[in-house]
């Protein structure tokens, strides 16, 4: 187990290097010059541009820039933003906690509500409740998140006045409630459907019949024997989903005015802030890698037949 984890962690190093290089090259390949764009509609000043580029090392050959970036990274230096002269580490430190709060909120919502609904629907497959859940999840899958976001905003904030339409204070979980639900709704639909199918199928499995025949209470049959075996596909999905919730919240963060990672990436892309995009995306890659490691370890917990050496 320990050796397995160590091996997986070591495998992350080439993935990490490769992904930073790829993103770094992609940002460089984007047309246009971010330093020049800083002057907007106004007259540009070549000597100034040369000076800014020199100070940020943007006039060096590409391999040299990448080398500087990497060696900085190992000293905890994520580089500096071109326009604001702010260390990228500061930008990340500002944005990540907000997004992590939002993503965890959405994640907990997805897990709790999604698995509950899925279990309920799976236990009563093809009955009215199951059909209802099927329809509900179909709706969530087909409605884009921004439609849901605006609809919620209109209904709960403008018409009913229960909530503030936007997040004024990102540490207030009450205000994060609506964006979290919007953000988690698509995953909710998938989790519900995965759980439902898995439960409905395993319900007919031999070991369930055995458990029931042994006279175990229903709570134990469903809660332990059935759920534990049915959760493997759901856990696989949830693992990758956590990464998507962290990085893919651009639209939701925009609608609810949340200063999170999605917005940072969006702005940085618009402004061609290469070091910011590379830094943030690299962190997201690491989150994905760690999440998939945890998923793999959870397999062993859920299914004792799986062993890692």
């Amino acid at each position: 187990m320990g050796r397995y984890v160590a091996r997986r962690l070591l495998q992350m190093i080439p993935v990490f290097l490769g992904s930073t290089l790829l993103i770094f090259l992609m940002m460089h390949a984007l047309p246009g010059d971010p330093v020049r764009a800083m002057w907007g509609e106004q007259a540009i000043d070549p000597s100034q541009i040369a000076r800014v580029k020199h100070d940020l090392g943007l006039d060096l050959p590409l391999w040299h820039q990448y080398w500087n970036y990497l060696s900085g990274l190992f000293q905890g230096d994520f580089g500096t933003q071109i326009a604001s002269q702010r260390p990228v580490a500061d930008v990340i430190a500002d944005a990540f906690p907000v997004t992590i709060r939002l993503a965890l909120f959405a994640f907990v919502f997805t897990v709790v509500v999604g698995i509950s609904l899925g279990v309920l629907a799976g236990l009563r497959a093809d009955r009215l409740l199951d059909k209802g859940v099927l329809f509900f999840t179909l709706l969530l899958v087909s409605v884009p998140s921004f439609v849901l976001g605006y609809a919620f905003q209109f209904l709960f904030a403008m018409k009913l006045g229960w909530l503030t339409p936007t997040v004024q204070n990102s540490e207030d979980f009450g205000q994060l409630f609506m964006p979290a639900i919007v953000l988690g709704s698509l995953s909710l639909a998938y989790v519900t459907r995965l759980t439902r199918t898995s439960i409905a199928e395993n319900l007919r499995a031999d070991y369930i019949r055995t458990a029931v025949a042994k006279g175990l209470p229903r709570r134990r049959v469903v809660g332990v024997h059935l759920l534990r075996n049915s959760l493997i596909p759901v856990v696989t999905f949830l693992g990758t989903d956590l990464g998507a919730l962290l990085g893919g919240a651009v639209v939701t963060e925009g609608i609810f005015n949340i200063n999170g990672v999605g917005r940072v990436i969006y702005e940085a892309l618009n402004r061609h802030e290469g070091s910011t995009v590379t830094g943030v995306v690299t962190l997201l890659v690491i989150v994905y890698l760690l999440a998939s490691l945890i998923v793999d370890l959870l397999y062993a917990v859920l299914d004792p037949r799986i062993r890692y050496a």
Partner: protein
Amino acid sequence: MRGVARARWVVCALSVALVASGCGGGGSSGGSGVVRASWGDPQNQLEPANTNEVQGGKVLDMIFRGLKRYDPRSGAAENMLADKIETSDQQNFTVTVKDGWTFSNGEKITSKSFVDAWNYAALVDNKQKNASFFAYVDGYDKVHPTSGTATAKTLSGLSVKDDRTFTVKLRTKFSTWPDTLGYVAYAPLPAAFFENHAAWLKKPVGNGPYLVDSYDKGSSMKLSKWDAYPGPDKAQNSGVELRVYTDNNTAYTDLQAGNLDLVDDIPSAQLKNVKNDLGDRYINQPAGIIQTLAFPMYDPAWSKSGLEKVRRGLSMAINRDQITDQIYRKTRTPATDWTSPALGDKGGYKAGLCGDACKYDATAAKKLIQDGGGLPGGRITLTSNVDTGSHRVWMDAVCNSINNALGNDRACTVNPIGTFADFRAQTTEQRMTNPFRSGWQMDYPLIQNFLQPLYYTDASSNYGKFSDPKFDNLVDEANAESSADKANAKFQDAEKILAEQMPAIPLWYQNGSAGYSERLSDVTLNPFSVPVYEQIKVG
């Protein structure tokens, strides 16, 4: 049944959370008397000489006062910190600073506060974006050479005479130069700016009617009234809270929900509702911004003689009224010259200088284009970045208008470019072979600012490389005139040359728009379409 019971519990928990947060929600801050206004995160550090965009400009306008200030209504430059600015030859100026002004940290404002600030701004090592504004001052080429390192640390044209006077020697005659001094780049700076730069950036200290209380980058800035402000334009509210919004739709939603008091950019999707939603709490007035279609005059296909007819014809083929009406819902005004109505008469604006060439006339347009030998290559493409400002939509409409006038569906097509950075690179490297969008936002409300940087030979923003000796002469003469009125008349004559040559087609003047809540009164926009925060009354 157990399952159902559990489901009920989940639903209850959710609704409890909903209700609880409903009760907790709405607790937005903003004490009485504080204006909560929408804002965008300034891209650059908040230094006066390094801020060339409107969001940072808003803050600097609240915390700084310069020698001159543009009247929020008329746009006329009026003395603020300047007691008097005198010249006898339009080239050597003596500036006298008023007595009794201090920075908010108590430091006295002297002539040195200005000279140090200007020297800092001009020096190439300090990488200030507005450095080029000091190019008029003698010695700029020493402190800011086009390549290599600076050979001097200070501008030789500036010298401090005593605590309240300093002299400025310009490189050439420039009679209206004092009127440019209302621009924020010319603001004075306290010693703290130079001594502890990092701390100053965290919490800027200025001499305007507001103080910066806190700056939470990426989310908000809180400013409060400076009670001891020595100027005549004291704040009428107790403070301003600027909140960062990335999406103007979201800000508009917050305005309607009562979470925000002032939105200074109405989203285009809401323009058709805004009158219903806000009534007379909606402002729509000309700002100092003009959009034009510039021709690549460096390309012989566009600059050879006779082609001016084609350029004029294209201008006449554009139905500006229809486009500003239907696409922009009157938040743009059809242009009839190359400046902006925001200048006012004093600033040199005169409607109709473009003459017939800017009036829609499809038949005359077709005839002119044919007389001029037709479109170069038989067809044209319009290029612009399309990431902001509904540029894609108007380009389609302009092309449509041209195609209809010429009776040829393929005469005009659009070439949308994804990002501004890419578009800017292509225009500055002269890769355009067809008309491209050229927008201009004024730095100071003077006609000179709309003409010289854009159409003077080899001027800094003359991306089409237009060059006309008669135009250049008129601009030089105008700058040497002793009175503003005479200078304006010369500049207007120069505009008539643009009307003949049509190096850029004036499209429309951009308006500034704003909406505010019932809590506020006395909300106005200045000629730069920035709200005049200090005049706003709350309650």
